[in-house]
């Protein structure tokens, strides 16, 4: 059924999206006789979630997990379509684009879940016991150490804007960021950037446009290109992925901005009427539990709300204490982000400044 709706949906998607929308389906079979299959629809990279799933199966060896990975917007489209038809999508949705999850919950597509574990979740990361934030991920800058001289490494948003302005020719076409038309998380971060400081964001956007910034669908692609040296700087990358990449590619540098750092909490939601809502709740409880959090800290998402930054990351000692962190609150305010007129206009403005103004002539050159 999902396949069918997905196929139908595909028709409406742009060619670019269609290319990227290939479902990444992975099955983690149960170690012991099967108690059932937990179907997760997620936007989290398989590499990041894998340690968590494997550890979960150590404590619940009777659960098979069917893990489906999508881009945030695709997942949102699938989930809202499924909710409209009242055919719940999987047993657990994990998305970094929490605004989309919140919209789903607001539309009545989520089932509430309370347990001792959910009580541990901070207020700002829990809405109606339906949407839970289970990670703490700052939006960071990444740069290639061999391409960006140490003196030029930007440590605030203003420094980045100024750097692109001053060394326009050097960085032309070498800065990468999310394509917010394709990536929900990119849109969420950009929108919150705009809310944070209108002027700085305007300047940054203008600088990036002039420097012909490259927009990509996903963090992974940009990180790879920065690591290779095709791109020099990546803007608004998810800290967890960036740090993971930096460990594999020593030439990657990670900077946590010192003026303000948006912090995203990856959201989890159990769809209303999910067939194995019990398994979904079990995995959710695991994610929120002490054990799950500690595995996430060491192997999956690296950053935590209370602890220090992981070693090798350039930034304030402790995100929370420095007051730099600006967590994106999981609450009704995100509905403003999801307002379709708002979204349309914001994306139009963004595209105009970044893509169109940055005329094709630059890139063809």
């Amino acid at each position, binding site marked *: 059924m999902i396949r069918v709706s997905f196929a139908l949906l595909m028709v409406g998607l742009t060619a670019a999206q269609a290319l990227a929308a290939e479902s990444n389906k992975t099955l983690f079979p149960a170690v012991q006789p099967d108690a059932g299959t937990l179907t997760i629809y997620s936007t989290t990279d398989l590499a990041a979630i894998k340690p968590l799933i494997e550890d979960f199966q150590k404590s619940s060896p009777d659960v098979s997990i069917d893990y489906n990975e999508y881009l945030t917007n695709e997942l949102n489209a699938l989930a809202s379509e499924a909710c409209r038809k009242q055919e719940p999508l999987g047993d657990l949705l994990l998305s970094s684009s929490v605004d989309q999850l919140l919209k789903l919950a607001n539309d009545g597509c989520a089932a509430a879940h309370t347990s001792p574990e959910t009580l541990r979740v901070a207020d700002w990361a829990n*809405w109606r016991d339906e949407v839970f934030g289970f990670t703490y991920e700052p939006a960071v800058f990444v740069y290639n150490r061999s391409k960006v001289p140490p003196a030029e490494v930007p440590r605030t948003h203003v420094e980045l804007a100024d750097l692109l302005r001053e060394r326009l020719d050097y960085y032309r076409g070498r800065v990468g960021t999310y394509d917010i038309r394709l990536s929900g998380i990119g849109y969420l971060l950009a929108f919150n950037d705009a809310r944070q400081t209108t002027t700085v964001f305007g300047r940054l956007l203008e600088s990036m446009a002039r420097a012909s910034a490259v927009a990509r669908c996903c963090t992974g692609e940009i990180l790879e290109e920065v690591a290779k040296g095709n791109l020099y700087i990546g803007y608004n990358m998810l800290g967890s992925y960036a740090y993971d990449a930096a460990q594999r590619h020593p030439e990657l540098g990670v900077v946590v901005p010192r003026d303000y750092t948006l912090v995203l909490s990856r959201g989890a939601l159990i769809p209303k009427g999910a067939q194995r809502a019990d398994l979904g709740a079990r995995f959710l409880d695991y994610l929120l539990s002490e054990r799950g959090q500690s595995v996430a800290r060491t192997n999956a998402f690296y950053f935590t709300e209370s602890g220090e930054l992981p070693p090798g990351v350039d930034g304030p000692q402790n995100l929370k204490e420095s007051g730099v962190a600006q967590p994106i609150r999981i609450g009704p305010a995100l509905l403003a982000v999801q307002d379709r007129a708002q979204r349309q206009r914001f994306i139009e403005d963004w595209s105009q400044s970044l893509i169109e103004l940055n005329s094709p002539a630059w890139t063809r050159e």
Partner: protein
Amino acid sequence: MRPEPLQHGPSLFGRLARRISFVLFIGAALLVTAAWYYAETAANKAYDRLLVGAALQMAESLSVEDGILTARLPTSAFELLGLADRDRIFYRVIDTHGQTLTGYDDLKTPTPLERAQDPLSVEEGVYKDEPVRIAHATRILADPAVSGRAYVIVAQTNEARLALTRELTLRATILVFIMSLLAFAGAMLAIRYALQPVEQLGTEVRGRDPHDLTPVTVDVPRELDPFVSSINHFMGRLNERVDLLQRFIADAAHQIRTPLTALTAQIDLLGTGKLDKAGRQHFNRVKERTSELSRLTNQLLSHAMVIHRADSVQQEPISLVDVARRAYRVAIPVTVDPDIVISFEAPDDRPFVLGDAVSLREAIVNVIDNALRHGTDQRLEVRVRATGTQAFVEVEDDGPGIPPESWEKATQRFATSKSHEGSSGLGFAIAQEVANAHGGTLSFRARDEKGFTVVLTLPLYKGVAK
């Protein structure tokens, strides 16, 4: 003397308690309902302000850009609504042509917007099967390109309102409950207090001497006056009847005495000379019976006198020794068997008691007479003695005495185990009557090796004797 419990109706206290608790319960229920109603109104008012505020903010954000109506919904409007942190939010912006600009296309106000008079409204409604509050705000646009009315509809689920209503109602309920408890406890105390005079009256009437038929003189609330005067009226009538009866007995005894004296004289005159043995026997029997009858008549008169005096004679301090000695002299006839050892023993300090000398003498005479007739074999001893608070007249004889199981019966009128011996049985009754009238008692001490004792106990007079 304890009266048998009557057939009880529900107690006055119980009836009042039930009615008061019923009234309190109804009152509390009404108050809680009212509290719930007010709480709901208050919660609705509070959250309606947020709703209208958000709608106004959104309406304010509408602007015409390049001839097109655009909505830049402010995040603050959603944050305002987010103050009700668990409630779902639905909104819709409608442009001047009635087309949805953004938001939920199927969200409608219960009253169609075209008919809405006020630019602002808040109503109850249902959206997505959930009860919601729906507010709308109107923005009148007068731009050359876009003119007319644009609307913003904002709806919010009721969770926060319900939670606030519940909390307020719960607190009010706790207060009402505490107040009801206090009121109930207070009412119970008040009822107890108010019913105390009834209890007191009961105790007073119950604690009365059975022979006391004087009016009840307890202070009672006005409401009990009819009851008390009924009792007093009844007692008065009873008293009259008893007086009448006593007078009748006294009159009868007196009337009997005259012919009886004549009869005795006649019998004495009759002599026994001409009678044969059987006749003499009959004659003696008649003589015996006649003297018994005359004694009974005397006792009846004495009894009537004692009762009369108890009611009418002012008590005064008297020396118990003097009274007892006089009685002793009266009671021991000259013809007493000279073999019997008779003694009178008195302390030197001459104890005084408050009383009527005549009645007391009569009582002691009766006790001694009784002992002489039925008890004494060889010895009779009359003793007066006193302790700190009481004075005693003890009459001890060496006869068989009365077994303890018959003590109670012995003081009843005309009751004696030896009636065939010619007892009238009024002696102890008279003595006890007198003892009671003097606030004392008549009691028996079981037979020991010396003998059987009848004790008349009287309270010692503390004042100075004349």
